[in-house]
């Protein structure tokens, strides 16, 4: 049901440029205005999110540790320990690198099954594989697209394009490997949401929506490249114009509605990105359980809003138990004097 609504939403998104361009001829709107507007929303939205998170302080140093701490000199710490229980900054950086680039934590994934009265845990790397395929392909495809926004195209992008399309034999134009892999990844992630009972149970419509949307983008892109050919030269004129802030709709070029559909879906994704769960891409950098060092006892972390709290003092304690302590022969502290200490509580502070 949720999935269906998401699917319909994406279909609606698909029809908007179709009608807009092929019926109403609003090429400037769909080729220039909307992409610019959405890109702006994307950038401003992301900056807003970053500031929004950064505004809240990190009061405590709370890394989640998955390896041996640094303690006594003779306690051996392997490279794994250093990365998963980082003490030094470079170890933290390495940990973050592995998380962001190789999805380290997801690689840990297990699957629990109950067989009779026994729990068994199997390795479950499929989710990791699907996620890696999808994210990496997406990233490479994005890089590849830079050739549409640069002139001359940097050698690096040319090389990437060349490597990605090394399967030459299947016809002209050559097939991109990432096109296949991203489809595989997406379909896996989608099927999982449909058929894994737990994942399906906890999925909202808003979890299906981006999957369908990206699927729409990928499929429209593939169609454009292999089936409904568009005038590549015209497209490049348009995209280069966008990139150089000199936007034009090339005269007479047969760009084709499919291109506008592709562009519109990409724009929608960009605009949707900062306000949805997709911000996890930026959020991971902020995650305090991953980006902090496990050196708490050696290096003090300061909480900007820490305040003294109300507590019982030893003087009050001794006053209450003096007699029994004396009887039991427990030393009494004669020097201690009752003292008043300043304190705050969440009630007092929060009333302000």
């Amino acid at each position, binding site marked *: 049901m949720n999935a269906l609504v998401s699917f319909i939403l994406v279909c609606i998104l698909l029809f908007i440029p179709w009608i807009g361009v092929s019926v109403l001829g609003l090429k400037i709107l769909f080729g220039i205005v909307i992409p610019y507007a959405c890109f702006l929303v994307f950038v401003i939205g992301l900056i807003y999110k970053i500031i929004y998170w950064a505004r809240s302080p*990190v009061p405590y*140093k709370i890394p989640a540790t998955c390896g041996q701490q640094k303690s006594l000199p003779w306690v051996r710490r392997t490279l794994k320990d250093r990365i998963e229980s980082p003490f030094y900054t470079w170890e933290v950086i390495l940990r973050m690198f592995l998380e962001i680039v190789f999805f380290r934590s997801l690689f840990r994934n297990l699957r629990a099954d109950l067989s009779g009265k026994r*729990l068994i845990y199997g390795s479950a790397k499929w989710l990791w594989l699907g996620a890696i395929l999808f994210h990496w392909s997406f990233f490479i495809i994005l890089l590849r697209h830079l050739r549409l926004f640069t002139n001359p195209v940097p050698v690096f992008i040319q090389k990437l394009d060349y490597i990605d399309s090394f399967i030459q034999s299947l016809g002209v134009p050559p097939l991109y490997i990432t096109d296949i892999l991203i489809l595989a990844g997406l379909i896996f992630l989608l099927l999982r949401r449909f058929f894994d009972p737990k*994942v399906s149970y906890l999925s909202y419509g808003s979890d299906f929506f981006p999957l369908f949307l990206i699927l729409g983008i990928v499929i429209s892109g593939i169609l454009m490249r292999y089936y409904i050919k568009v005038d590549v030269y015209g497209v490049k004129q348009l995209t280069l114009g966008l990139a150089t802030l000199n936007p034009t709709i090339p005269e007479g070029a047969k760009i084709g509605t499919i291109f506008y559909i592709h562009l519109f879906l990409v724009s929608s994704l960009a605009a949707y990105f900062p306000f949805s769960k997709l911000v996890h891409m930026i959020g991971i950098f902020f995650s305090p359980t991953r980006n902090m060092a496990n050196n708490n006892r050696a290096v003090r972390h300061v909480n900007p809003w820490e305040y003294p709290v109300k507590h019982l003092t030893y003087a009050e304690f001794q006053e209450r138990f003096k007699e029994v302590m004396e009887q039991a022969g427990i030393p009494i502290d004669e020097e201690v004097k009752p003292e008043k200490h300043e304190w705050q509580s969440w009630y007092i502070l929060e009333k302000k």
Partner: protein
Amino acid sequence: MSLPKPEELIQDVELHKTPEKHWMDIKPELKKGYYLSIIDPKILEELDLPNMGKWQPYDEKWPLPENWKDIVREEILRRMEKHRSFKLFMDICVRCGACADKCHFFLGTGDPKNMPVLRAELIRSIIKGEFSTFGKIFGKFAGARRLTEDVIKEWFYYFYQCSECRRCSIFCPYGIDTAEVTIMMREILLKLGIGTDWGLKPVHNSYYIGNHVGIPPHTLKENLEFLMSDFYEITGIQVDVSKYLNRKGAEILYVPMSGDYFADPGIYTMMGILALFHYLDLDVTLSAFASEGGNFGYFNSLEMAKRLHSKIYEEARRLKVKWILGGECGHKWRLWHQYHNTWFGPIDFLEIPKSPITGTVFEHAKDSKLVHICEFTADLIAHNKLNLDPSRNDHLIVTFHDSCNPSRAMGFFEEPRFILKHVCNNFVEMPENTIKEKTFCCGSGSGLNAGENMEIRMRGGFPRANAVEYVHKNFGVNTLVCICAIDRAVLTSLMQYWVPEVSVAGVHELVANALVFPGEKERTTDLRYRPLKGKEGNV
């Protein structure tokens, strides 16, 4: 309340089947044996906390304060402002489900709301539904819902079915820590006046008397004397307890947990630790006031945790010690390691800890001045300072339970293992996916170790017990060693239920079994009066 038999308890658990209805449409049904009782309002008052009068969770209508919605909304926003973790975790979950079957409460109940992701959704959905326009328009489609009284019941029910163990967080690709969410949510509930009896009575005791179980100073001394008189009977070694209590000018302050001088089997660990102090002739003292290293405050709010633990550094200052040594405890070490110097620092009135026996400087604790007793003992063994006879633990086949907090908030894996391998000859690890960072909770952590919620405890502890059962059946393991005072108490009940042949011990109980004192009499039993291997006839 009687529990079903072990083989029946988890029969209803289905890990791969989910209810027909969407979770938002399932009304919370508070099952007996799953939730804790509510605290007496008087205790709340004496702790300067709000209360809702006398009531219990099974009451149809909860006496929420009139402006409860405002309170809740305000408290949520405040916590997002103060804790980046909470704010971030509310935004970035993609519902990938990697955490779903990592929670022991899910594995023991099959209840989808015990999947960490849905536990967090219980609040995430409210934030979307109450504060986001997007969420208000799209509602359930976007995972948003409105705040109702049922939501409060649900929060109480499920945030007290999370033991803040952080197992889910290490599997999450973004490090979303449901324990952090639970901490925030319990704080918010407490702001309404919802607090548990089992969670707050110890707080009250610890605040006014010094320790969770409310043992006054003279009884503390008596208990310790009693322990050491047993020790004398077993070993012939006389330990004078009085020099270990409230002695000003000692070099080290040792902070125990009340569980260790209050009840079996914790007392054997305490016995072992005092024996070790005596063996080393260590210049160490306990404080009758700072007689609790554990901190139930933490299971209610961070502020309450800080209020309880203030006394530790203050006692260290008053007693003029140089540094602090902490006993075997789980959540205490999360606080001591991750919070203490932020709360109370800079700790400039103490010195960088240095072992007076080996000369080792504990560089890794140079700021907080807090050393774990296992670090201390491991260092002694590494420097060959202890005369150990591991064969005196030959009647035990040992496995080690990594407590959640030292594992996932500290990375404390090798020190206790190093000790164990030197004090006993039979050591077996549990299956790889149930130890170290992937360790399973005892099922009763974070203040859930009461009697009225025994069913959820036995269910939540099932994955742990299951792994113990495996090594018991395959390797004959009969002793489960742990470094946590709550564990020593609750794993004992857990084992009695699931694997009754296995008993629970602390690391230093085994250390003292193996420790050869000069001039001791020939030992025929361990600290629990159980015959040593080959000495069965002598008892």
